[in-house]
């Protein structure tokens, strides 16, 4: 158990800069999930923490000690790799005791700890098997077991579930969460699967092209995304963005599609006429019975059983999706569907910078900050 501090961590490979100064602090026992598109530098960040790569700039602190230049073998960090990296020439028991033998623990103590971890993960009957005699799920558990027997200061997970089938993934995801809570080990978990990220994280780090786009709780990231990238990345189906500009003292969005949409929360600290993107999630926009000034031409209807997904375009050709409960009913492709945008579900972003534009907090209300 430990605190982890990353200070201005940057990494370049030759001419390409992969990470541009990452600042991140993990509290003792916290599970922080890093999520981002493929190639945004998640694995690189994890490898820097593990010491498998050395940073171009910045420091890594574990419990206040600077470990930036410490060899990985002396960091007391355990990592679960995407391909598990089990030692093929050793049994499951051998894999799990490897790190313990190196620490010079007495045999009895090693056996006790391996048995305990094996029991926790249901690996008891498999201890004499070799990795190639195991299924993918079993291998994953051995990799977990190898990490937890050592009782390290920090767990690192690099997409540990991506090689499992969908059903198993859901189950193991829950197992990992339970285990992590129970052991209370500070963990840094990398994934590009947002469901995994949302369900596992105490706090979520959304990365975008080597930068941190937002660090916040999963709920906050979903409810108050810091910029258009986060807003579009988190949430499925992705958020709709309608271009427009601020009007009437920042209380109304005048959309290019024609409608004037009232905004909640009062005036924003940017002048009228500022070009904005008005965001709303497909499940928050509502079909209206009467014309609202905003209409979507339905192009595709996807019935998903308990709900229906409508894809279409607004008057200005912006694509727009809408998720409604139940079956499509009388809706048909080609019709113009009036759409209502509830003010409390709207997100306003600066079109130029992509950053969230919130009204300044009224006195008494909690301060809001998208970005730490």
């Amino acid at each position, binding site marked *: 158990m430990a605190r982890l501090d990353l200070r201005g961590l940057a990494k370049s490979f030759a001419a390409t800069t992969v990470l541009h100064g990452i600042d991140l602090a993990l509290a003792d026992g916290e599970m922080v999930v890093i999520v981002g598109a493929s190639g945004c530098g998640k694995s690189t960040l994890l490898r820097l923490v593990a010491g498998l790569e050395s940073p171009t700039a910045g420091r890594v602190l574990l419990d206040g000690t600077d470990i930036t230049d410490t*060899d990985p073998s*002396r960091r007391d960090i*355990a990592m679960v790799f995407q*391909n598990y990296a089990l*030692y093929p*020439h050793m049994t499951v028991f051998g894999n799990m005791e490897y790190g313990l033998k190196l620490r010079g623990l007495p045999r009895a103590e090693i056996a006790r700890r391996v048995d305990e971890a094996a029991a926790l993960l249901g690996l008891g009957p498999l201890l004499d098997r070799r990795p190639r005699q195991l299924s993918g799920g079993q291998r994953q558990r051995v990799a977990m077991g190898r990490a937890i027997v050592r009782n390290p200061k920090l767990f690192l997970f690099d997409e540990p579930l991506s090689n499992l089938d969908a059903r198993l993934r859901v189950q193991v995801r829950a197992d990992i969460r339970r285990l992590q809570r129970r052991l209370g080990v500070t963990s840094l978990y990398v994934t590009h699967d947002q469901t995994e990220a949302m369900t596992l994280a105490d706090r979520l780090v959304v990365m975008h092209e080597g930068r941190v786009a937002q660090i916040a709780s999963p709920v906050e990231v979903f409810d108050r995304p810091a910029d258009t990238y986060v807003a579009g990345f988190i949430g499925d189906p992705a958020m709709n963005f309608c271009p427009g500009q601020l009007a009437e003292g920042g209380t109304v969005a005048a959309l290019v599609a024609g409608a004037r949409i009232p905004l909640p929360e009062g005036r924003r600290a940017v002048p009228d006429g500022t070009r904005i993107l008005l965001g709303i999630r497909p499940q928050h926009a509502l079909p209206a019975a009467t014309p609202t000034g905003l209409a979507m031409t339905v192009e595709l209807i996807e019935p998903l059983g308990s709900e229906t997904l409508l894809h279409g375009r607004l008057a200005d050709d912006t694509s727009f999706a809408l998720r409604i409960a139940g079956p499509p009913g009388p809706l048909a492709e080609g019709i113009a569907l009036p759409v209502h945008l509830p003010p409390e579900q709207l997100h306003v972003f600066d079109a130029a910078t992509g950053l969230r534009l919130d009204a300044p907090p009224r006195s008494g209300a909690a301060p809001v900050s998208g970005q730490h």
Partner: protein
Amino acid sequence: MERRTLFPGRALPAFLVLPQLAITALFFLFPAWRAFVESVRAVNGFGLNARFVGLANFAALLGSGTYRATVLRTLLYCTAVTALAMAGGLVLAVFADREIKGRAIYRALLILPYAIAPAIASVIFVFLLQPEIGLLTGVLKQAGIDWNYVLHGGQALGLVILVGAWKQVAYNFIFYLAGLQSIPRTLIEAAALDGARGWYRFRTMLWPLLLPTTLFLLVVNTVYAAFDTFALIFALTGGGPGTATETMVVKVYRDGIINLDLGGSAAQSVILMALIVALTVLQFRYAGGRERT
């Protein structure tokens, strides 16, 4: 993945393999048959007539102390060359596997000795170590070593072992480097995070994972040391001084061509052939196994 090309009928395939079969017959089957015939005959002192003597040539060989000494010497030679060449190849491969500057050049240079003909390799070492004018001889003399492999049997044996190993290091280097590079990086990284370093990491991770390569190389190197070093030894020492560097293949040549004991030499050849067959079977076991995986 295996690629097969199928030729129709029987005539064309037969025609296509004919040249190879002819070469095999002319340069292997015929001499082998001659060796076998000679090995059961004795030729009188004037080379005028030969008579059938059964296994007498073999009996004489096995009863002879010098032949037994040659077999032991060959064993020592093979062991030393194999051990040195494999250890050398492994050490260099482990270093070349790291991320270093100029890696491509370094690797190319290491592979070079393999491309040199055995006789040339010997000449290079003669330049270096010739008792009177060798480039290194002076240095050795100054260090107080009476270097003269033409006189001292031990030094001569050491030299042919050294040159034999030197030539084979490149081959082992290539295979070990390929072996190391086929070990997934993450395995080594996982071991490092588990706390393994240096020698321990090598002993518990790299070495066991290289075991198939090692077994394969063990057979190949033994075959090399036993049979392929003839040209090299012959050019360096000719088997001498005395019999100090006379391995089994060298003795076949000396007894048969120089001393004209055709029967005894032929019997030795037959024994060597039996050895080659045994080693080849072993080699195909491992080489074949590698290709299938």
